[in-house]
């Protein structure tokens, strides 16, 4: 199905931020906001929950620790015990470095993998906005244009005049899925 929405363009983060705060206060659904760099305070303004990625890191790290210690203990002391330099079969201090490295490795890879997977869930927004310089120097604000109270002309004017938007345009897009 196609979806209609209003696309508002800003030249800098200040207007955008104020606009977002305003619209949320009004309760108008903000579909998506795009910026060329992480705008300070925007997530809060949009009311996004904080990420749960740190937990992934923690569990990844623990997994690495377990694998590291078990692997070394089992191969050195259980599977084929060999007398190496007269040291004990389970000479744990010697096993610390490898265990540590595996902690970092597992934690790091787990985190990134999780990030990539999670971030694949696209925002309900136009699939491609190339040319709108959203990755260059423009800030885009996408508003839902479905509900009853929606009035394009009115909205566009308020964006331009009150928040210094460069412009606003109604677009129809294939819903990304």
């Amino acid at each position, binding site marked *: 199905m196609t979806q209609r929405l209003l696309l508002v363009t800003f030249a800098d983060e*200040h207007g955008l931020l104020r606009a977002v705060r305003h619209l949320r206060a009004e309760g108008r659904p903000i579909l998506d906001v795009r910026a060329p760099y992480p705008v300070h305070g925007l997530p809060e303004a949009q009311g996004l929950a904080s990420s749960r990625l740190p937990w992934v890191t923690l569990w990844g790290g623990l997994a690495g620790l377990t694998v590291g210690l078990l692997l070394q203990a089992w191969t050195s002391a259980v599977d084929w015990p060999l007398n190496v330099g007269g040291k004990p079969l389970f000479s744990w201090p010697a096993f610390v470095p490898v265990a540590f490295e595996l902690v970092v490795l597992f934690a790091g890879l787990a985190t990134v993998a999780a990030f990539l997977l999670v971030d694949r869930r696209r*925002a309900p927004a136009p699939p491609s906005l190339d040319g709108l310089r959203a990755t260059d120097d423009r800030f885009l604000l996408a508003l839902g244009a479905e509900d009853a109270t929606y009035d394009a002309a009115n909205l566009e004017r308020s964006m331009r005049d009150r928040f210094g938007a460069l*412009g606003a345009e109604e677009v129809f897009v294939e819903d990304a899925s």
Partner: protein
Amino acid sequence: MTDHAHEPPWIRPGTTLRQVTDDVCGRLEGRPGRLWWGGFLLSLGMLGIGLVSIGYLFLTGIGVWGLNRTVGWAFDITNFVFWVGIGHAGTLISAILLLFRQRWRTSINRSAEAMTIIAVMCAGIFPLIHMGRPWFAYWVFPYPNTRGSLWVNFRSPLLWDVFAIGTYFTISAVFWFVGMIPDLATLRDRAKTGVRKAVYRALALGWTGSTRSWHRHETVCLLLAGLATPLVLSVHSVVSFDFATSVLPGWHATIFPPYFVAGAVFSGFGMVLTLMLVARKVMALEAYITKRHVDVMCKVLLAMGCIVALAYATELYMAWYSGNPYEQFAFRNRLFGPMGWAYGVMVLCNVLVPQALWSRRLRGNLLVVFGISLLVNVGMWFERFVIIAGSLMRDFLPSSWADYAPTLAEIGTLIGSFGLFFTLFLLFCRFVPAIAMSEVKATIAHEAHEAAPADGSPPPNAADRPGARAAEDALAGGAR
């Protein structure tokens, strides 16, 4: 960090977001200049020398190196430690300074990280080729096998190296790439030709710049930075264990882990400075790598130099205080023995020369800084050489004392490793945004914000009309 208003800004004032994009992407989109080609061919030549040397080594045997029954390691492991060390500054800048929210890192962290990854590649070559039978190198990995499952010796520092260097390379590469995704998206959106578009689209992993993505992206970068920080400290500690855990006087030193890490960061910053100063000139990045960047890096270099000097002194003191005759001889020999000259070079380059950086005037003189940064690299190479070869040449039993002199093959390999380093670095400058655009933009916004008057009225460089026009055009033709 509130006094920024008084200090000169990190990015030349008046630089617009658009300019950032154009400055950075423009270089990748245009054709490479004469300078680039010159440097690239030179590097390829050096790389060729290295490949020939290594090929000859593989065909003939380790004997083509100047080693002997007493000195089993010299150039090979010296180069290894040297390159691993170089890598450290990159991680430090990208991770630790990120944790400390040092904004000045934004201009240089991308290339610093690239330097890290490339340096680790160069380092990785040496443990491989220094083996007598490199075709069995895979035996250092603990994999199930038909030998009744004969595993590996987890007590060996060399094995720790395998894991440390492996992890270090992986995490650095991932960190680097994740940080680069938004910039790749920028390139994607600017790309004209189909190929470029396709490539960058694939690499950008569908980055949209949506707030959610940015939010997660920042979190991931922070987490990776948090992981990379202890990692980078561990890596050179592990490398130092190769020597610290041995019985050899001059290697067997408990101070080595911090000593090596400090040295690594020291040499790393030396190399970063070298590269930055070159890139700044060659790629006209004065707007982003300002004198203030150089100044700060010089201060870091000076600080690390002093730490290293302290380490040298401590080493000597501990040798004397230990009362261990072998230790004492090892260090008297290090200073006054056959390798004394090398120790001299090391002290000169790593301790004496950097002291010049106390002077603000010299820190401002880029030529001087460039020279110092080069000398630091020389000095740090010699530090490793003195420790490794110098200690081996005179160990416990006088009967087995022997001297060492490098052969053509060894020198060729060293040249080759530099060739590889610069070849890869030039390719990096050519195909990836050498400056983290999004971060620089954030910095600009940040500084603009601090420069802005209290009321929320738009800062001077925000509303650029031509840009607005372009925006409308784009809107007009944007989505149908």
